[in-house]
């Protein structure tokens, strides 16, 4: 059990390392955002599993489960908020079709809208 936990810990750390490498290697904000959304989630899951396998108490299991659940839910939400703010403020150019821009043009939305409350 300890050995399996150790393997899970190392595997999870490798995925966190993947997130770090992605953060440094990728050329533009959007791809780094993609990395930050997906890699830490799996990394935290594996490290959590490893930690639970090594500490086998009920209290630790529930606490770790909460941390993992938080990462699964709040991680993508945070990435979504960042993605939205990058799209609205910096607006780096896209290669392909941009259907959100089409919808914005239809609704006449000012993409550098300062007032984001009440939406």
């Amino acid at each position: 059990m300890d050995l399996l936990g150790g393997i899970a810990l190392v595997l999870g750390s490798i995925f966190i390392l993947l997130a770090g490498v992605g953060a440094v290697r990728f050329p533009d904000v959007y791809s780094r955002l993609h990395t930050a959304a997906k890699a830490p989630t799996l990394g935290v899951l594996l490290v959590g599993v490893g930690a639970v396998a090594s500490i086998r108490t009920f209290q630790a299991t529930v606490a770790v489960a909460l941390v993992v659940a938080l990462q699964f839910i709040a991680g993508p939400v945070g990435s979504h908020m960042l993605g939205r703010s990058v799209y609205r403020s910096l607006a780096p150019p896209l290669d392909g079709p941009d259907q959100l821009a089409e919808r914005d043009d239809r609704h006449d939305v000012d993409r550098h809208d300062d007032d984001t409350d009440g939406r």
Partner: protein
Amino acid sequence: MTPVRASGLLLWITFLWVLLWGNLSAANALSGLAVAVVVLVVARLPRLSRRGAADNAKIAPLATLRFGAFVLVKLIEANLVLAWEIVTPRNRIHTGVVQVPLRTESDLAMMVVANVVTLTPGTVTIEVEQSPPVLYVHVLHLHDLDAVRRDLLRIEELSVRAFGSSAARAQLARNIS
């Protein structure tokens, strides 16, 4: 907030409090209950959905397991694709934003799909519109708009089958056939 939901939340917060303190004693349980009451009174917790009881999740256990396995597999696939991207030259990136109209009106389903989309290979949710329910998704390798839409609508189908409300399931059945 309904009494059922309130007492459920009270129990959950008390359980968390006792758990974080480590040992189950009368003092811990009572202080936990007090904290739970204070939290419920002070924090105006939002309703789960705009439509109230009509959106009550009906959980199908087997479908939920299948959905959970699907999410896990997609997450692992996304990470492997990322690792591959890092190692090989990056000239295959062709970004774009895709509009994905959803077929069901459930808030819970929309939230879950938007979350899971961010975890699938190459896609991140950027904007969410509630009525009509539409998701705007940023894609890293955008070569076929319809293929992306099909993949993402599959996520919606699996999640509604797992814990959609009866209204959502009916909408799904109508739109699939």
